[in-house]
């Protein structure tokens, strides 16, 4: 179909612009699904925000300058003309695919809702950098008026999305177009652009001047706005510059921009404006009052704040200087976040990486685990602080690392580790004030409140009930020798609500105190309850010093959150959340990031095309070319761990966990397994994911499989032994879970693969684009050789009919199943790494 619609006629475009829904009739089947779940909530929000605002002008006006710099305004006409000129030169090969797909997304009304509209601020300023492209634009404007404005109209159309923008930015050789798109970036939603941030920055680093100049204003602007974005940029710039030769690297644009960001000169230009605005004073925005009120109630601020504010401001400064005899000035808080905008977070990341480095020097897992716990407990002294996890979806401050929960993950020579992080959700981590520290031991006061009989109380109720709890900073009470929490007093509370499988008997023991009559119990009941309770607790893995993570990962997430919350001094706060993150030190996560982007893109495509394939892209934070963080997949353990711990076949494990065949739980789990298996088989095939041993495939509590570790993709494979020649990993055990070769589920599996491949093929460009841009200037092993992109394209089989594709899928499945190499590879892994 790519060949059929080489060009878009102006009429067509116009039509597209006017009514996206109408256009769907002209394109293929995919467009018959206009309301994909992902785009559901969007249209309602974006028009409403844009309409109400004075700044909702035509897209090009977005670039209009701030006051005082009129010369630098990019003339809309100029830009328009420049775009028109290049129109004919630009091939429309990919445009059709994108346009058609985009048309199903009403999102694109956001052509008029630029990011600032939500903040109610003035349009962004464009700084000096525009000056140069401007000249170019002016030069060209003379001889282009005659051309049709098709491209421009495309750009201005509602269908023009970020994916297309990136594509044009990358493919267009015209500075005018590039400059235009650079400005157009401002009009996309931040989240949408953020997805392509690695591509943008890689282009900035490795492509020519013009592209860089087009991108820079946007990046600078966003850096001014957000600390998080600044750091992300700095890290990515560092990571993607690292492949350059050392001599050029020092003077490269990427390095310079990185330095600029890290120098922290990119302060929010709007800061003073924010200051003047009476509404949200910077240090304490009203929405968070309740949260602060909470902590205010729980501890007397007068006593503690000065210490905390200090350590917050100077996370880097050693502990020892924290204590001053006289109460230091509590006013420190007010001015703290300006001088050290980026420092706390950078120091936080640095200490996490430092821990990883030191762990790597220890020989045994046990020592690593112990050291990890002790290092983290030291880290805890410096928290809470203005630090956060970038992998989270909401703004928050990290308040505590429950250090005893951290585990070292399985790795031969490096020491990746998984930590859980307690955070308090907040309105905005840059402006909300950092939570007050609560000492560890204070859990005792909170626990009894947490466990009050009625767990269904609203946060407000809980807040009020909390404030009535005796204040432990009250001096005369606090030092009283007899400790709080008399066992006898707490007793009834604990028992009436501790957990659902509570023994009837324990309650009896209370009542027995009142009634004088002796109570008799059967010894058999005690014994029975003991075995029942042990049976009722969800299957856990045995503790194994060589595999400390197995137990931690097996524990259901909800259970873990509850447990950690109970043990945390912050657990009572309503905005308390638990996050987890894997810290990788010594590993290059750039490929992981690339894989994440591709997976995410395919997930969106499949969702949009309503193919029920299930995959789980997990977030990646690249910090440098050899460190980063990964968002762990919760409620999942590796198949290796499953097999080693349970000593069962996969099918039997499914029956153990989910029930026997034909139970609803089993069937659901089986369906989940099939859908995820099909999804990941396609991923493995398309991306040529290698090193697929059972340690790299997770199984979650719902039966989904999740592939992790995309260290070997595209052109790279481990040790180039030539193993794993099959398209993907499909062992007979997997087939057994699917119900055997002849089962309906297995056919469903193959059908899913076919649908998934067809859908992916339709949007191939969106996938290719992600990979192709990252290819620029990269030395990553996955881009080894010259044919990486071509081979990737070939795997989409654009030239095959659907029937042919079906045959292809059959062949791949057949081949993979028979593949001796898969088995060989598992055997090889077992021999070398002990992975089952």
């Amino acid at each position, binding site marked *: 179909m790519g060949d059929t619609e080489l060009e878009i006629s102006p009429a067509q475009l116009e039509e597209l612009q006017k009514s996206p829904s109408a256009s769907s009739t002209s394109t293929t089947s995919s467009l018959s699904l206009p309301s994909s779940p992902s785009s559901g909530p969007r249209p309602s929000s974006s028009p409403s925000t844009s309409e109400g605002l004075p700044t909702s002008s035509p897209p090009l006006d977005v670039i209009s300058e701030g006051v005082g710099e009129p010369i630098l305004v990019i003339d809309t006409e100029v830009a328009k003309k420049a775009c028109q000129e290049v129109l004919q030169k630009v091939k429309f090969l990919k445009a059709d695919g994108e346009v058609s797909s985009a048309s199903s997304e009403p999102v694109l009304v956001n052509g008029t809702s630029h990011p600032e509209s939500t903040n109610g601020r003035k349009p962004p300023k464009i700084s000096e950098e525009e000056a140069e492209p401007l000249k170019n634009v002016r030069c060209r404007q003379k001889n282009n008026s005659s051309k049709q404005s098709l491209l421009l109209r495309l750009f201005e159309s509602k269908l023009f999305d970020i994916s297309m923008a990136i594509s044009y930015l990358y493919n267009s050789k015209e500075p005018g177009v590039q400059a235009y798109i650079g400005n157009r970036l401002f009009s996309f939603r931040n989240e949408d652009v953020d997805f392509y941030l690695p591509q943008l920055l890689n282009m900035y680093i490795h492509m020519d001047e013009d592209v860089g100049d087009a991108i820079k204003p946007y990046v600078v602007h966003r850096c001014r706005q957000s600390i998080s974005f600044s750091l992300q940029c700095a890290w990515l710039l560092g990571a993607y510059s690292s492949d350059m030769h050392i001599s050029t690297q020092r003077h490269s644009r990427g390095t310079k921009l990185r330095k600029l960001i890290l120098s922290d000169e990119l302060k929010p230009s709007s800061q003073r404006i924010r200051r003047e605005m009476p509404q949200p004073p910077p240090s304490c925005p009203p929405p968070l009052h309740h949260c602060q009120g909470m902590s205010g109630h729980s501890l007397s601020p007068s006593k503690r704040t000065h210490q905390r504010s200090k350590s917050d401001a100077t996370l880097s400064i050693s502990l020892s200087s924290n204590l001053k005899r006289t109460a230091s000035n509590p006013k420190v808080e007010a001015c703290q976040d300006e001088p050290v905008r980026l420092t706390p977070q950078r120091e936080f990341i640095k200490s996490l990486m430092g821990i990883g480095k030191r762990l790597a020097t220890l020989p045994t897992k046990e020592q690593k685990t112990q050291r990890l716990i002790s290092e983290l407990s030291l880290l805890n002294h410096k928290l809470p602080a203005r630090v956060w996890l970038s992998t989270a979806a909401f703004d928050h401050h990290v308040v505590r690392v429950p250090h005893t929960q951290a585990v070292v993950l399985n790795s031969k020579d490096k020491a990746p580790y998984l930590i859980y992080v307690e955070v308090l959700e907040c309105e905005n981590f840059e402006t909300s004030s950092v939570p007050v520290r609560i000492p560890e031991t204070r859990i005792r006061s909170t626990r009894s409140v947490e466990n009050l009989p009625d767990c269904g109380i609203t946060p407000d109720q809980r807040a009020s009930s909390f404030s009535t709890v005796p204040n432990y900073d009250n001096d005369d009470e606090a030092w009283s020798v007899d400790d709080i929490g008399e066992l006898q007093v707490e007793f009834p509370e604990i028992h009436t609500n501790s957990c659902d499988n509570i*023994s009837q008997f324990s309650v009896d023991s209370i009542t027995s105190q009142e009634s004088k009559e002796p109570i008799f119990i059967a010894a058999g009941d005690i014994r029975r309850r003991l075995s029942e309770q042990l049976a009722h607790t969800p299957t856990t893995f045995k503790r194994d010093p060589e595999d400390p993570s197995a137990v931690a990962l097996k524990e259901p997430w909800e259970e873990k959150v509850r447990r950690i919350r109970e043990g945390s001094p912050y657990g009572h706060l309503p905005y308390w959340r638990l996050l987890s993150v894997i810290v990788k030190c010594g590993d290059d996560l750039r490929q992981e990031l690339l894989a994440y982007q591709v997976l995410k893109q395919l997930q969106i495509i499949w969702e949009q095309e309503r193919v029920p394939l299930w995959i789980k892209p997990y977030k990646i934070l690249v910090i440098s070319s050899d460190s980063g963080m990964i968002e762990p997949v919760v409620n999942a353990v590796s198949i290796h761990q499953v097999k080693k711990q349970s000593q069962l076949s996969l099918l039997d494990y499914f029956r153990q966990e989910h029930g026997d065949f034909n139970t609803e739980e089993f069937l659901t789990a089986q369906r989940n397994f099939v859908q995820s298996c099909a999804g990941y088989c396609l991923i493995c095939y398309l991306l040529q994911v290698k090193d697929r041993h059972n340690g790299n495939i997770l199984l979650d509590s719902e039966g989904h499989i999740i592939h992790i570790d995309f260290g070997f993709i595209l052109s790279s494979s481990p040790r180039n032994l030539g193993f794993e020649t099959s398209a993907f990993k499909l062992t007979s055990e997997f087939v057994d879970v699917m119900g055997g070769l002849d089962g309906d589920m297995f056919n469903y599996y193959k059908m899913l693969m076919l649908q998934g491949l067809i859908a992916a093929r339709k949007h191939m460009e969106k996938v290719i684009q992600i990979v192709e841009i990252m290819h620029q200037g990269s030395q990553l092993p996955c881009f080894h050789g010259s044919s990486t992109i071509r081979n990737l394209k070939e795997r989409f089989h654009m030239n095959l009919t659907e029937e042919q594709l079906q045959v292809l899928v059959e062949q791949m499945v057949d081949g993979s199943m028979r593949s001796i190499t898969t088995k060989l590879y598992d055997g090889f892994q077992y021999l070398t790494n002990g992975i089952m």
Partner: protein
Amino acid sequence: MSQTEKRAGLLRRTSSSKKPLKEKVVLMYEDIFAKEEPTKSNPRFWDELFLMKVNLEYLEGKLESLDGDEVLRVKDNINSLFQHCVQALAEEHQIKVVNALQTLCALFRGVHQKNRSATGFDIINMLMGFDKAELRMKELMESLDALLCGDGSQSLKSLCLKLLLCLVTVTDNISQNTILEYVMINSIFEAILQILSDVSSRAQHGYDAVVLLALLVNYRKYESVNPYIVKLSIVDDEPTLDGMGRVIHHALAEYNRQYKEKEEENQGGFFSTLTSMVGSMFIADADEKLSVQTNEAILLALYEAVHLNRNFITVLAQSHPEIDIATTPAVPVPASPLTPLGTTPPSLDMMNNPELPLDPNLQTSNLLITFLKYSSIVMQDTKDEHRLNSARLCLIILTCIAEDQYADAFLHDDNMNFRVNLHRMPMRHRKKAADKSNPSRPLVCAVLDLMVEFIVTHMMKEFPMDLYVRCVQIIHKLICYQKKCRVRMHYTWRELWSALINLLKFLLSNETILLSKHNIFQLALQVVNLFNMFITYGDTFLPTPSSYDELYYEIIRMHQVFDNLYCMVLRVSTNAGQWKEPASKVTHALVNVRAIINHFNPKIESYAAVNHISQLSEDQVLEVVRTNYDTLTLKLQDGLDQFERYSEQPREAGFFKELVRSISLNVRKNVSLSTMSQDVLLKEFSSIS
């Protein structure tokens, strides 16, 4: 000035044999002890005095030798000396400050030595004069505070602490030291905290600061409001508490290390191998050689911190690198004056490094682990009074820890596993060091191991009854926590059960001897109730169903002990007498144990009869147990999972008074300002001024 110094030095060296020639400073002292105002003859008298090297012996001796009338005569001059000492503390000239500090020390000591029987008020009057006392002491404390917190010389800080220690320990009973009333009013608590929070000052003065704090907290603890108690209980600054923890940790670890060294030395010799073979009766002798002076002052500090400050509990679990293995010899702590001033002992550097060192051989440890190891050494031998006190204090500390919810939480934390190598008493009937490869387990296992070890090793004629009671209480408290929070420890409970049964057996066989001194029924009741906890609440904290079976097996196997116990308590409770009441409590408590025995024994016998087996194997007994649960009915007993919380007053007050007295004596002996070499000070200050 240097000339006078030289002369003084020369003179001093010869002074030991002959009657000392009079040095200038002595002449000046004589002026003070004359009636006349010394400034009459020499207006610059005080200025000059503090430039002279102090002659502590003379000054102290002179003060001691004064009789009543003379005292009255020279009182004004002594007051004046005191006043000028205090003034000199604010001097810029550091030599003057040093000499003033030492003079003050001599004054405090001399006056007290003279007037052992005198009331505190007389002493204050003699030193400062009643009317001026408050002002003088205020000035003194402020100066000391300033010196301790200032950026001045480390030696000066050290001297300040010595002076304070000297002042605090001049009386045997700290509560009778009336001058401390002024130390209460003019608190130097903040200065102590600052020393502990700062890395470098902690390394040099931490030990003295912690001991000083421990002593100050014990001043009139039970009679009045002691501001140091109040302040210590509300400290919540982690670096400070952590610093305090590290000082304690270091001192305890140092003890452990020294003990280990001695032990290894001894093991080499033929004699020691012989003695260890001869058996437990003679171990005490061999141990004598192993004994390293226990450090009660540090233990007291740990107790006060754990008992008073709930935030300190977190410090217990705070990990540090293990210093045990470090090859560098650590500073012999109580004798710090021996180490050259102003230099940090090498091992302290590591302890103070906030970043943990990179040495992979270092095991991470924490205060609690070190404390458990220390306890295991101290508890080995309780014959000597000091060690008995130390062991008692260790158990009291453990009691406080076991009662603390947060401490319980981390003791039972499944993710905090440690290998704790407890010292086990070498005994004839068991292999030594068989458990080299003990697994890494939650810390509560180590605590239980320690308790079991104690129970097993102290069944002797000099029965340490109160230690046993504490020990069983600690176990009880831990099990209460486990029951409440439904923590299932994979602990070898069987060892505990058999230790407890053996204890009962010991009580029975030594009934008459023990009963003359102790209430053995109280202990027996506690032990039986521990079994009742397992029997009736086992479902809430035992790790596996089979462990419940094993409990029954153990009870059935040792049924004779319970039978005999029942006979004994029944006999005592039917006779009138002081033990009637406690013994009858034990009979009631035994109801379930007896029900079990009476229920299963016939079943087992019939099983044996049916199957024609004379001796049933363990598995067979367990089989019988398993199949016959349902016909057994137990009685639910009240209050099994409740315990009396620890309180220092009134029960332990006497112990602590005595302990503090012994610590005071010990500290007084070891605080020696005279050993502080003037040369070192001079060297240091010559570069400053």
